[in-house]
């Protein structure tokens, strides 16, 4: 595939004047300062990373640059011209096109209408969609019926189709499985080669190293530095982002016999021949007490349905689920919760009451059952909730309403809920989606700790290296069935990828750009 990219532009050279130049941007929400003093300068043809911890203000800056919100202060120049972006429409006219952190297609319109609404030409859009690895999109499909990952790609294709001067991608790859993320990176990179600029936000260092020329780092709403991307720069970026060096935590998977000791012989969860229409065929696996089992799959292989079924959200059409050796039938998520199985969905808008407080969101399961409808023991709740908040280091400056938290902090609330409820089994669907490096480490540690306490975790991830970081075992799903199981020592990326594409062991899979740069910059592992 693509050659590893060698940066063509560096700060010192500055061959051209910046295409986009923002300085002194500030934005307050009541008492919360989302941005204090941010600046960002992007050269023509450059892929520029915007980095920062959760809540640093990246999304806010993108929204300001694209007219979705108005800044309190700051100056934005485009091609040297002062720009007053008062609305997304104005930003479009100036050649700035965003893909926001949340999908922006209108849910009740079909794709074609969405294109017409934004005046996007259809043919280029189709071409981009194919290019991005979705061969058979029906543009008469209603956006609401399209899975999140595909929606994100459509958002991108829609932006690409109008050939923007500056493309702003806010955590574009966070919700994508490996194969789609791969394509996105390829396309973005060619965008840079074609002389257009891209502002790229991601918490994945691999992608940054593979793709970007320079990075601007935000901390607490201020720009703390601009660096050239070169091998070994990751550690410096992390330090700039977080203000401190983070503690090295290589979470080691424990040996299989350890698991047996903690867990006893009976598996916590035992799935046999699970069937769900055409989506799941004959899925079987065990999850022991004290075990973290990874699930790896490409987009749309049935992983969503598997999790939803285990969580009691959908009824399976066949097969059995045993919990602690006893067969169970879930007809509602509350049945699963009763059996100690909690589900953290990948899409946080599915898990959070956005207008309610962090506290109420975390405490929600406590009131769920009929017996818990009475008076709430407020002090006990306070203790439990703040314990969970502390454990996940949730930034609660804007705790009145969850919708005011940054994306990553919202994600943490979805996990904190089940930590507080002390669930015995957690089904995590991509829990680190959009979470910054520092917190990711915390979450890995947390999952391992839970396992250490004898709890069990089923863990779907779209990032291959997470598998090795936290799991004891990995199952790979392809076409709605479990095609392979690896102990963590054997779960290297070529092997996972091969299995994920449904290829037999030993065959060569197309693993692309990420695999190529991997050995050089395993940033998070090293830090």
């Amino acid at each position, binding site marked *: 595939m693509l050659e590893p990219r060698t940066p063509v532009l560096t700060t010192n050279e500055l061959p051209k004047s910046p295409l986009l130049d923002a300085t002194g941007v500030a934005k*307050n*929400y*009541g*008492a*919360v*300062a989302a941005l*204090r003093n941010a600046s960002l300068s992007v050269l023509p043809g450059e892929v520029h990373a915007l980095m920062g*911890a*959760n*809540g*640093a203000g990246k999304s806010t800056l993108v929204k300001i640059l694209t007219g979705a919100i108005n800044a309190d202060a700051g100056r934005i120049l485009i091609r040297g011209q002062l720009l007053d972006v008062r609305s997304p429409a104005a930003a479009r006219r100036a050649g700035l096109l965003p893909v926001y952190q949340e999908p922006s297609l209108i849910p009740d319109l079909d794709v074609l209408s969405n294109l017409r609404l934004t005046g996007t030409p259809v043919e280029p859009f189709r071409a981009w969609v194919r290019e991005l690895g979705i061969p058979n999109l029906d543009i008469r499909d209603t956006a609401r019926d399209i899975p999140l990952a595909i929606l994100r790609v459509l958002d991108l294709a829609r932006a690409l189709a109008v050939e923007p001067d500056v493309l702003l991608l806010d955590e574009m790859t966070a919700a994508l499985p490996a194969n789609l993320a791969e394509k996105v990176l390829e396309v973005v990179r060619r965008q840079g080669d074609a002389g257009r600029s891209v502002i790229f936000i991601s918490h994945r260092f691999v992608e940054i190293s593979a793709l970007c020329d320079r990075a601007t780092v935000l901390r*607490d709403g201020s720009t703390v530095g601009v660096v050239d991307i070169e091998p070994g720069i990751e550690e410096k970026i992390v330090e700039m982002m*977080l203000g401190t060096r983070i503690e090295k935590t290589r979470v080691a998977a424990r040996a299989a016999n350890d698991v047996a000791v903690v867990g006893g012989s009976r598996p916590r969860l035992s799935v046999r021949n699970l069937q769900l229409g055409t989506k799941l065929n004959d899925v079987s696996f065990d999850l022991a007490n004290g075990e973290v089992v990874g699930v790896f799959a490409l987009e749309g292989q049935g992983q969503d349905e598997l999790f939803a079924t285990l*969580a009691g*959200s959908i009824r399976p059409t066949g097969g059995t689920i045993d919990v602690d050796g006893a067969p169970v039938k879930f007809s*509602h*998520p*509350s049945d699963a*919760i*009763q059996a100690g199985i909690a*589900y953290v*969905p990948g899409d946080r*808008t*599915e*898990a*959070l*009451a*956005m*207008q*309610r407080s962090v506290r*109420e*969101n975390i*405490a*929600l*399961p*406590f*009131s*769920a*059952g*009929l017996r*818990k*409808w*009475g*008076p*709430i023991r*407020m002090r006990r709740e306070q203790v439990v909730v703040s314990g969970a908040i502390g454990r996940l*280091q949730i*930034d*609660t*400056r804007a705790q009145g309403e969850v919708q005011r938290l940054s994306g990553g902090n919202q994600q943490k609330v979805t996990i904190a*809920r089940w930590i507080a409820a002390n669930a015995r089994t957690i089904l995590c669907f991509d829990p680190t989606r959009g979470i*910054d490096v*520092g*917190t990711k480490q915390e979450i890995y540690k947390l999952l391992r700790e839970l396992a250490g306490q004898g709890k069990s975790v089923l863990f779907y991830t779209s990032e291959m290296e997470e598998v090795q970081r936290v799991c004891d075992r990995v199952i790979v799903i392809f076409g709605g069935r479990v095609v392979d199981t690896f102990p963590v020592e054997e779960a290297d990326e070529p092997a996972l990828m091969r299995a994920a594409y449904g290829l037999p062991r030993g065959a060569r899979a197309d693993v692309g750009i990420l695999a190529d740069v991997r050995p050089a910059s395993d940033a998070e592992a090293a830090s």
Partner: protein
Amino acid sequence: MTDIATMPQPVSFGRRIKRFMADRPLIPLIILLVILVVILQILRPGIVNERWLANTAKFAIPLAILAGCQTMTMLTGGIDLSVGTVATMSAFIMATQIVNQDPAVAFLLAMLPAVLIGLVNGIGVGVFRVHPLIMTLGTSLIGTGFLQVYQRTVIASGAKIPDFLNWLGTGVTYGFPNALLLFVPVAVLIVFMLNRTGFGRLLYAVGDNERAARLSGVRYWQVIVALYVLSSLLAGITGLLYIGLIKAPSLSLAEPLVLPSVAAAVIGGTSIFGGRGGYTGTIIGALILTVLTTLLTILQMPEGGRRILFGFIVLFVTAAYLRIVEDR
């Protein structure tokens, strides 16, 4: 990670006041109410006296309880348009059954349709997922029909207002309307329920994001059925109070309260889309509407002008309140 620090920044006095009010949305609402009362006093000096206060409270109370039904249902993204019919039914049945039944039996008979309608509403909305507006509109049509059929069977026996309800509805003790004896516990209960009980939490959660509530183990239909039954029960009790106040059982007794009850809840800051609001604001909203009605009654102007003015004041009050409370 990110340090938990708020911005130490000099804030202007105006902004501080605004933020203070935004944190306590009740205060601006009360201020708006007081302004209306002052205007009333200026227009008719001397009107604001003990007797007026008691009368205002008497009429605001039934409205406030029905608005409580709206508040609770609106929190879940619903609405209960059947409260008017339910209140009328229980009032009418009470007044006609008391003639030759034991009071306790009459009371139970009066509350029976309330429970039934609440149950049907709850099942329709919670299980069959019918839109609450249509569901409650439908049951209120059905209820009205039944009431009219029923009415024909009792024309001969006449009607009577039980003395107790009369005392509760119109009586005043030491300057306080007796209706407060009913209202204060009801209000305290609703406020407590919304803020400090699991059920209250669920109303907000279900209204905000039903899927999230479901994934947290909440069974939607249970919450909704309980809610609509509760709402209907409150409406039924309001009907009894109201018949004590008006003392004339008619087939449309409480219908005129339905739209104002929705308005009171919305003016009080409850969102019709669910997930946001509370009962204390609603109570002030009901008071504002009652005072406004008085204000317009005593104004000497053509009826058309009065209605125009009413519309504009309602709009102004809501808009002003939003401006003050919103921190943008």
